[in-house]
């Protein structure tokens, strides 16, 4: 069965620190990859997505992610975090012709001012 792993469950950073959240998936075929974010008290919303083309994807609020097919990875990065980036981040995958979004367990990011 397909699965998504987010190895960092809790991350604490100071403002201006760099961020990288890991995401690995298990599926050998064509995948679509997503990062969603849930800010405190808000809806789950899309941060960025990869369907095809340039494996380096840029999203909102200065986030980016790189699809590395050989490593089955789609890590999320931001060069300098802000206090407002405090949220829970979810990696998700759809595979093949499936509608199903498979989510990772999420990473809670706390940015200290």
């Amino acid at each position, binding site marked *: 069965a397909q699965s998504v792993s987010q190895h960092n*469950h809790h991350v604490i950073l100071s403002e201006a620190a760099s961020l990288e959240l890991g995401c690995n998936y298990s599926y050998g075929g064509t995948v679509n990859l997503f990062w969603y974010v849930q800010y405190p008290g808000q809806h789950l919303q899309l941060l960025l997505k990869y369907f095809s083309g340039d494996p380096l994807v840029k999203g909102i609020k200065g986030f980016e992610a790189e699809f590395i097919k050989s490593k089955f990875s789609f890590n999320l990065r931001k060069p300098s975090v802000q206090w407002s980036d405090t949220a829970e981040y*979810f990696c998700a995958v*759809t595979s093949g012709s499936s509608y199903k979004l498979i*989510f990772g*367990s999420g990473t809670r990011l706390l940015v200290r001012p």
Partner: protein
Amino acid sequence: SQTIHQWPATLVQPVGSPLSLECTVEGTSNPNLYWYRQAAGRGLQLLFYSVGIGQISSEVPQNLSASRPQDRQFILSSKKLLLSDSGFYLCAWDPRQGWDTQYFGPGTRLTVL
């Protein structure tokens, strides 16, 4: 623009009582609709999805059921709640145009006592 509504926002129910959670989407037609459950530290788990009125696919055997009586209405139900049904329930939709982003509602926090 499209919006998605869920109600109630929070619900506290005794074990053995029935459940009905409602989700409606505005501003689009013929969407795919989804129910997810979010458990602490476990990410989001897909429960049901629907590609049209009366068409429901169940992903996880459980105490819950779903129905889609109208194009933009998706209902999650149970005849008798269990303690293990407690969680955060999210409804989502996508426009069914290729493999696109799913958009999430605000969620319902269900506590079964």
